[in-house]
């Protein structure tokens, strides 16, 4: 009946997502738990989050030399399948050396800055808000510094606004705290 572009989304398919995720495994890990410092884990990310990020890469609103060319060729259906696959994978905390003093300070800052309002208690994420718990330290640092500098891609400005009061030290402490959450 309708000719529509972009193509219509259909019900997301975890199995199709598993196949489509094969080229992603080299960086993000077969089950979405990455091991390369600076590369985010996708396991356990809410469906809306992963799908929105892929749309932003495809539209050029979020730029990355590795991700932009990949997202360029994804259909809405591919994105929905990938997002469903990654949400279904159990997330594991990224290994790394964390500073207990920074973790404690980060925990205090997370409360002061209302992180759980959107990212939920335990920072497990919901809807379009990312799962943060146990994420890679370098990636968290890069992203928080990007939001502070107003250069990281934001869906509606919420994170850019949230990052403005953070000092450089606050960002490091928050990242240590976030990276310490979740199960190994």
């Amino acid at each position: 009946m309708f000719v529509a572009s972009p193509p219509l989304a259909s019900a997301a398919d975890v199995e199709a997502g598993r196949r489509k995720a094969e080229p992603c495994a080299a960086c993000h890990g077969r089950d979405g738990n990455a091991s390369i410092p600076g590369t985010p884990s996708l396991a356990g990310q809410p469906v809306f989050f992963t799908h929105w990020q892929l749309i932003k890469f495809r539209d050029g609103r979020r730029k990355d030399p590795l991700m932009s060319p990949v997202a360029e060729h994804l259909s809405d259906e591919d994105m929905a399948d990938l997002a469903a696959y990654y949400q279904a994978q159990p997330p594991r905390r990224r290994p790394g050396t964390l500073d207990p003093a920074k973790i404690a300070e980060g925990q205090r800052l997370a409360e002061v800055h209302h992180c759980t309002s959107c990212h939920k208690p335990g920072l497990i994420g919901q809807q379009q808000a990312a799962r943060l718990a146990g994420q890679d330290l370098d990636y968290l640092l890069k992203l928080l510094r990007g939001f502070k500098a107003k250069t990281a891609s934001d869906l509606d400005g919420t994170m850019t606004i949230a990052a403005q009061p953070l000092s450089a030290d606050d960002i490091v402490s928050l990242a240590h705290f976030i990276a310490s959450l979740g199960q190994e």
Partner: protein
Amino acid sequence: MRRIALSTLTVATLVGLLAPLASGQTPPPWKQGQPQDLADSTLAPIAQPPAPKAAGEIPVDKIKLPPGFKASLWASGINNARVMTWGDKGTLFVGSRVAGNVYAVIDKGGQREVKTVAKGLNLPNGLAFRDGTLYIAEVSRITKMAGIENALDSPPAMEVVYDILPRDLPHGWKYLAFGPDGKLYFNIGAPCNICMPPDTHANISRVNPDGTGFEYVARGVRNSVGFDWHPVTKELYFTTHGRDWLGDDLPSDRFDVAPKKGMHFGFPYCHQGDILDPEFGKGHSCSEFTPPLLKTGPHVAGNGVEFYTGSMFPPEYKNRVFLAQRGSWNRNKKIGFRVMMVTLGSGGAPKYEPFAEGWLQGEEVWGRPVYTRQMKDGSLLISDDYAGAIYRITYQK
């Protein structure tokens, strides 16, 4: 000429200065102004799905209308479809918010083709069209694409019309429309749920289509993302979203008329014309401000405003106003998710009644009507940014 100054205050600083919170930092914009006793509330905005629903997943038969009216699915697959405006040659241009896209929908004899003519924009909700040119309002700028209908596959570059608007993202997205005076009208929303806005915010403003002559039209308007002009009196009518976190039933959203420039509609001092804000209302009286023409209901999220001027619908529909209400999040029992209609009388209260309902089933939401746009034949299109669809309402006796 008054020029608007870019606000150098960030929202965080502003709110931090004026409404210090116990914790010392500003919560996310949607949570700002939440009192301590509601701190455990689970209410939060309804997330925008990242992709449109497939045509087969859209239960258009659930849309309930008055007798003789019929709803059909006119177009689907339009991510985050919001404002609609017609090109001279019959292209329907459609704006979005978080999707960042502007679309062109071409009617091809019973089929609709959707093209994305701009992407990666900053909340491009506002669209207006005149003399072959599409005007696009993002958060901090208005741009135009001349001759676009002749070049939908290779759209022309966006030329700046006006780009010194505030950059604040909360309530930063705009409605845009040509007034009867040929000027471009748009909102500059309050950069918060509740705060003392800078002088540059919480208003409806206008500028000439060449970017000169900026001026404020209406003040004390928290955030209006829908307006139209009465077909006879040419007066400006607009909806306004009320503040959150004053409870399920307060305050009401508003439908207002601004017959002249410079009127003040109360924000942040007075809400719904008759209740003072618990914080900013101190030392004020609601009698200082213009009351609403109509209280449209708490948290209904009134967006689209359109006077009906077509001939398909029954004669009593002439000059009635359609109000599209995207629906509540800051209320335990959901409300809105419908298109209401207003019959303005000569004296007496306006009549306010449902026109199209059914996007809300119990507490389940399957769609959110955002704007309406008449077709040439007098039928009415309704955009739905949640399902990414456009419905067409027709009437037959």
